[in-house]
């Protein structure tokens, strides 16, 4: 079972990944966006860390909802509402339980990704974060690691795509040949989840559920 601490660690790991990769995310955002994806997410996850340290989020659901609200209040752009909605909706779906099973996490993330699709109006193949999130969440039933790898593969698969939503869509044909920054950061988020689960399971092999 996974407790609130597990989700705090996930958010911390996600923040560290964004910090490590901020320059690459911004670099990917230059040819087909406006060169700020890394700095925007870094601002958001820095605020998430501060909010989680200050806040009394005691359940898995509360941790993710606080993280989501904080992203909405600090990131701006499209990423703020989209990532914020992903985490808020996932957190809502986890309810008020003190501990949740991996199966519950899988279902909640599925609902979270559905909310992102609804809010942004995009579908897989449009060269957006959904191209990493959808295959990632679909592979969660295998393991967190398989899901992270599927998301990474999904992000790479955006290279030949023609963008139909988001800032890159204004480029039309010229969006082809570039990896989508949002799909790339989505893959980082799921990789951080897999790292967190690996660390937790190594510390307590009986704890995974």
């Amino acid at each position, binding site marked *: 079972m996974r407790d609130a601490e597990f989700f705090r660690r996930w958010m911390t790991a996600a923040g560290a990944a964004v910090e490590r990769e901020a320059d690459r995310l911004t670099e990917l955002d230059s040819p087909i966006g*406006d060169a700020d994806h890394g700095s925007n997410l870094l601002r958001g996850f820095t605020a998430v860390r501060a909010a989680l340290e200050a806040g009394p989020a005691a359940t898995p659901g509360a941790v993710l909802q606080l993280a989501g609200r904080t992203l909405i209040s600090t990131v701006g*752009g499209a990423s703020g509402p989209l990532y914020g909605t992903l985490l808020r909706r996932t957190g809502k779906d986890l309810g008020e339980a003190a501990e949740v099973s991996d199966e519950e996490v899988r279902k909640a993330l599925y609902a979270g990704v559905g909310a992102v699709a609804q809010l942004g109006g995009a579908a897989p193949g449009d060269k957006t974060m959904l191209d990493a999130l959808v295959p990632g969440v679909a592979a969660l039933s295998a393991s967190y690691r398989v899901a992270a790898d599927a998301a990474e593969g999904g992000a790479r698969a955006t290279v030949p795509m023609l963008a139909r939503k988001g800032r890159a869509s204004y480029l039309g044909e010229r969006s082809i040949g570039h990896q989508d920054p949002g799909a790339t950061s989505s893959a980082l988020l799921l990789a951080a989840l897999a790292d967190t689960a690996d660390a937790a399971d190594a510390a307590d092999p009986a704890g995974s559920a």
Partner: protein
Amino acid sequence: MRMLINSPETVVADALRGMAAAHPELDVDVERRVVVRRNARGGGRVGVVSGGGSGHEPLHAGFVGYGMLSAACPGEVFTSPVPDQMLRAAAAVDSGQGVLFVVKNYTGDVLNFEMAAELAEEDGLRVERVLVNDDVAVTDSLYTAGRRGTGATLFVEKIAGAAAEEGAPLERVAELARRVNASSRSFGVALSACTTPAKGSPTFDLPDGELELGIGIHGEPGRERRAMMPAREIAEIAVGAVLEELAEVGPAGGPVLALVNGMGATPLLELYGFHAEVARVLAERGVTVARTLVGNYVTSLDMAGCSVTLCRVDEELLRLWDAPVRTAALRWGR
């Protein structure tokens, strides 16, 4: 790249401190990033609120004041502001008559204003939203993010603000704003990419001797790259593209408002020379220009280039355009 800044992290806050120092008639909340017209609730008017990423100055904060915006919410550079800012702005300007959000059509702005509108309505405010989407370089269809909001934002904010100043109710202000947007089209050209403070180098690579056609206002490249050409040929392409789509709006021959807008790094000497060509092309096509504005109004940091926006107007829209306005960047008749 040399910039006249303290640090990339503080550019927006520093600019707001400067606005506060230069314009005591504005209430500038540097910390929360909201610029409000002094005594915004005083007149019992509809509030007109806009906002968007920074880097397009004077849009939007430069248009806060008598006869135009009640408040503006500047985001990070080229990044939509967050719902908290819009909620604060709405609360600061609402006199019970409701608030109009003027939103440029970008996914981020649309989503953040949508969230803000929902929260404001939960707080009991009446909110209407108008989307500005005038850029003809982008295909407008269900399968895209739709046309971008660019130069027409100035027309929408001016005319909606004038109607609000006259005491028009929210539905009327919103209807006029939508009419202005529906009657406007724009086309932009870049002669250089822009440099965001965070990145410190140009957002795209544009070799000497080439130009980008169909650019937006966020340093994103355009649809097509061509060899550099004289202003007269650029004017023919830009005006031609705008008029082609404006034909859908109404019968040709009616008067238009014309905005020849600099992207930030093009001198007025060049802009006026370019406007001479724009005016020539319009005359050749039989278009009557009722009013013209030439200058840097909807910019893209230090991008060189320009955009052309035309708005078909009737007597009512023209009267509201001519109505007095007193803001940092636009003022006449009072």
